[in-house]
Every structure is written in structure tokens, then in C-alpha cells.
């Protein structure tokens, strides 16, 4: 694993999608007037006959994607997460999820990564997509996982929702890291834990930073990276949770219906006794602002994870303070 502040990559999704399409002629790319913003300008320029701009008409775009998939295509649908979940939910349910088609819905700007306010912040997209039968839901953490996810979802038979950060994408994992659609991974920690932290997507840097601070203060922390929120790798999570005094989930999403809920269901059904604390957006709509401002204001920071562990373990010492990293332009550090 690399060390923060993380180096970043640009357009790993767009590059990976184009590479996939060059290998596989059945791959098509659909968009809704957000071509550069969804990194698909490089696809459009290289393979214009396989790029279809549906315009600002997401419901129609999803229906068209369904028809194309029925005819044998693997269809990547790209727009912002809010517009390809909230806006066309019935279309996704009926035209994609129910017939279990090869439509891969790629939603950009997850959670509070958008400065655009509630209209552009997909804070419940995972909850919506997770509720649909047949749907796989993925929230990758870094550029390597994004690149691997593109191939993995194309190989997967059925619909997928892939939520992707825009812009500079951190490089967190080493090149031997493998994203699998059926596995979560223990990425930090040992055999005996005080706290088990399960995270995904943009929260992984904060989860890793919090775990390190806790370790530095004598608390054994195990970190699980769970990019595939559905189907959740319950055995890995339950096994770690059983050994822990407290379980914490961290998601760039409302705490209702996303990763935290999925983990809660898994450990409750398995009879795990450890209490659970969910770090995420606390059932509110947010506001406009920078990532740093919003993650801090809405409780998605490293310190929030440390605080939750400290309170959950009822430790009678002052709460350690998360280190603040100097970040050069183009580098990425957790809030």
C-alpha cells in the first residue's frame, strides 16, 4: 500500500473503458450531455460510431441501453450519480435490473465529492441501487480499482452500478491489489482487534489514516476495504467483526441504506455482539462547498472515525488528533 498524500491519476475510467472497447466490439458507451465530465470524451473521439449521446434524457437513455443490451451489447451508461439513479429509478428497475441485462450504470460525483449542492450530490445512490434485485453495486477507492472494475463489470453477466469520483483519482493500492466482485479485503491490521473499520470508495484514505492514528495510540485496528457493497462479502466482514470490540463503517453516503446498513444486516444476522457505529451523512441534505469543507462539516473526516472508535471503546484518555497532511497540488489526502 502506498503512503499519503497519495499520487493521483487522471481519467483512469475513461482510459480503461476505451481499452476495453478496443478489445470487445460489443461494448457501447452512452452519455447524457456530460461527456468530458464522465471521462468518455476519449471514447467518443476514438470510437465515435460506438458512442451515443442521448442528451439530457436519462429515462430514455436507460431504456435505450436496455434495448441494446437485449440485442447483445454490453452498454456503459455514463452521467452523474444523481441523474442515473434518482431520476430514472423506475426505468432502471424495469428496463435493466428486472431483465438482468448487461447495462453498466456509471454514476460520477458520489456523496459529497461534488461542490454542486444537493442537486448534484449522490448521497443515496447506493441505497437505491442496492435495493434492486440483480444489481451489483461498486464503490472503488482508487485508480487501480477503477481500472480493474471496468473489466470486472464487463465480464459480469448482469447490471452494475459503479460510482466514481471525478477528477484527480488517488493511487492507494500497490499494483498487486486485485478488485474482485465477490471479495472484500483486510488491508490493515492483525489477528486481534479492538476495532474493525469497514470502508469503501472515497472514505478509504480516511479509514487508513484513522487506523494508523489509533494504532499509534495503542488501539488495534483492522481495516476492511469493501468496494463491492452488493453482493457484500459477508464472511470476511463477519469474521473480522467477531474478533472486534466495536465495528465502524465509513461511507461517503447517507448512513441509511448503504455500506453501513449492509454491514449492520450482515453482522446482526450472524449474531455478532460488537456494537456498530456508522460514519456517513447523517440523514440530511448537504450544501455547496469544497470536498474538504463538506467532508469535515458532515462528519466524513478521519477525526470522525477516530472519535467514533474512542467513544465506542470508552477509553479514558484524551482522544488522539488526526494528523493534518501537507498536500501538494495534484496529490490527494483524506480530510
Amino acid at each position, binding site marked *: 500500500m502506498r503512503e499519503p498524500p497519495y499520487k493521483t491519476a487522471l481519467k483512469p475510467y475513461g482510459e480503461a473503458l476505451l481499452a476495453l472497447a478496443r478489445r470487445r466490439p460489443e461494448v*457501447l458507451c452512452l452519455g447524457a450531455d456530460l461527456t468530458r465530465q464522465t471521462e468518455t470524451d476519449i471514447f467518443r473521439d476514438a470510437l465515435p*460510431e*460506438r458512442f*451515443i449521446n*442521448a*442528451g439530457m*434524457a436519462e*429515462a*430514455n*437513455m*436507460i*431504456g*435505450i*441501453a*436496455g*434495448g*441494446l*443490451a*437485449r*440485442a*447483445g*451489447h454490453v452498454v456503459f451508461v455514463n452521467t452523474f450519480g444523481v441523474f442515473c439513479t434518482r431520476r430514472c429509478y*423506475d*426505468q432502471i428497475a*424495469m*428496463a435493466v435490473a*428486472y*431483465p438482468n441485462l448487461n447495462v453498466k450504470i456509471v454514476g460520477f460525483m458520489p456523496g459529497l465529492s461534488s461542490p454542486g449542492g444537493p442537486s448534484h450530490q449522490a448521497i443515496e445512490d447506493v441505497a437505491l441501487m442496492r435495493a434492486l434485485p440483480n444489481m451489483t453495486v461498486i464503490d472503488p477507492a482508487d485508480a487501480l480499482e477503477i481500472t480493474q472494475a471496468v473489466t470486472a463489470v464487463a465480464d459480469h453477466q448482469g447490471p452494475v452500478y459503479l460510482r466514481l469520483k471525478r477528477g484527480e483519482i488517488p493511487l492507494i493500492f500497490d499494483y498487486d491489489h486485485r478488485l474482485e466482485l465477490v471479495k472484500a479485503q483486510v488491508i490493515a491490521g492483525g489477528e486481534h482487534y479492538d476495532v474493525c473499520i469497514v470502508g469503501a470508495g472515497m472514505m478509504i484514505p480516511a479509514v487508513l489514516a484513522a487506523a494508523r492514528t489509533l494504532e499509534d495510540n495503542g488501539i488495534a485496528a483492522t481495516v476492511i476495504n469493501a468496494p463491492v457493497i452488493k453482493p457484500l462479502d459477508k464472511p470476511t466482514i463477519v469474521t473480522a467483526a467477531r474478533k472486534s470490540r466495536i465495528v465502524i463503517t465509513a461511507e461517503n453516503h447517507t448512513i441509511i441504506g448503504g455500506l453501513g446498513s449492509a454491514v449492520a444486516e450482515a453482522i446482526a444476522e450472524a449474531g455478532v455482539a460488537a456494537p456498530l457505529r456508522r460514519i456517513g451523512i447523517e440523514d440530511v441534505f448537504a450544501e455547496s462547498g469544497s470536498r474538504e469543507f463538506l467532508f469535515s462539516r458532515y462528519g466524513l473526516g478521519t477525526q470522525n472515525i477516530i472519535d467514533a472508535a474512542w467513544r465506542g471503546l470508552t477509553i479514558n484518555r484524551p482522544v488522539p488528533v488526526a494528523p493534518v497532511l501537507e498536500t501538494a497540488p495534484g496529490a490527494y489526502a483524506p480530510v
Partner: protein
Amino acid sequence: MTTNASDLRRLAALIRLNATRMVAIQGFGYLGQALSSAETLAVLFGGGFVRVGRDRFVLSPGHYVIGFYAVAAEVGLLNEDELASYGKDGALLEAIGTERTPLVDLVCGSLGQGLSGAIGFALASHLAGEDRDTYAFLSDGEMEEGQVWEAAMFASHHRHTLGRIVVVIDANNSQVDGSVTSVTTIEPLADKWRSFGWRVAEVDGHDVDALSEAFASGSADAEPFVVIARTEILGQMQSIPPTIDGHFIKLDRALEHAVTTELEAALA
């Protein structure tokens, strides 16, 4: 397959008779949809316009699937015995079409979605370079859904990269809450489609000659084509009181007998 008008009229009567018998199983159901669309379905499938096995057929309002079953049994796509299971628990022939529905390429239950799926098929035909047309059956009530117009705009803008697409609208002026005209003004329908870049034919949807002529006029050039079939929800049946709710007909024994008698007389 026939282009003979009297044969097509006879097929339409058989569609109505099959549908009446299917609805009689439960005593209520989507009979009106089959009554209004009988000639359209007769011409599409009996008249050889939909090349079964080659062209794709999309049924947007899944409530009309009864009419499709009724014609499928007459043109040899479906075993006539199957019709007796319509709407029963566990039956393959469900009252509103689903993914289990046989023979159609796409049937929607949530309204307004069919044209988008049909456009997906038409794009795929073009990409594959196949001679494979797409027929999409829509109803007038679902014109209230915005997605229909998103799709209409898309098809016209992308007409050079679409395989041939033909839409037929069963304009029977019926929806759940009453007549379409009483709920929302969707007219002028022909002008709307024309202004969205479609070639439009507007015909008496109970006139098999007019329907045949309209479908035959569909050219292979890049132009999406819509046929607006003006129909009556009760299919001009004399035996059904005009005050009845045509969207979801309650068919008691007396009414069933009256309807069946009228249709059998027409077939005699």
C-alpha cells in the same frame, strides 16, 4: 398471411373472441385493449408486416398483451390451449406482460418506456447492419409520460443511425380515470409527432384497408414513422353498453354471452 380485407376483418373478430373468452375466465380484465386494437394487431401479424423471427416487436403498454396472445394463437405462434390459462395464478400468460411473456421482444408494464427500448433495438440493427425492423406498439394514454417524447426526439435526431422503426399508437381515448381528453390534452397528436421529426399517418384504426395502406407506406429511408390508429375502446361492439369502463371491463355471464354471440355472428 393475407392482404385480403375480409380475412383481416375475420382475424380481428377472432382476436376479440379469444380475448373475450380469456377475460371471461376471471370475469374482468383488459378486454377493451384487445377490442380497440384488434384490427391493428390483425394487420401487423396477419398481414405480414411484422416478419416474425426477423423483425422485433415491442409492446409498450403491457396491459395490451391479451390482444397479442389472442392474435398469436390465430397466426400459429401460440398454442390455442394456452389461452385458457390467461391471468390464472402461476400461468405463463399473465394479465400484464412481464419478462416471462413469450414471443414479444420487449413488453413493458410501466407505461411510457417501450419506445426507448425499441430505439435500442433499432440502433442495434443499424450497428449490426441487419435487415431487421423494429415495431413499437404504444397507446395514447402513455403519451402523458415525458419519456415518450424524449424517445421521439432521440429517434428523429439519430434517424441516420437507426434501423427502420415503425410506431403504432392505439389512440382509443381511454385511460384509468376516464377518457384521455378528460384527463390531459395530448392533442394534436399528429402535429406533435410531425413537429418531433416523424412521418405521420393517421388512420381509422378499425379500417383494415387504411391500416394496411399506412404500414405499406413505410419506406426504408431514414425516417421514423408513426401510425396513429384512431380507435374506440369498445371496438365498435354493439353488444357492450357505451357507458361501461372500457379500460378494465367487468364481464358478467350475460355480457359475455352477448359479446360472444355478436362476434360469432360476424364470423358465421
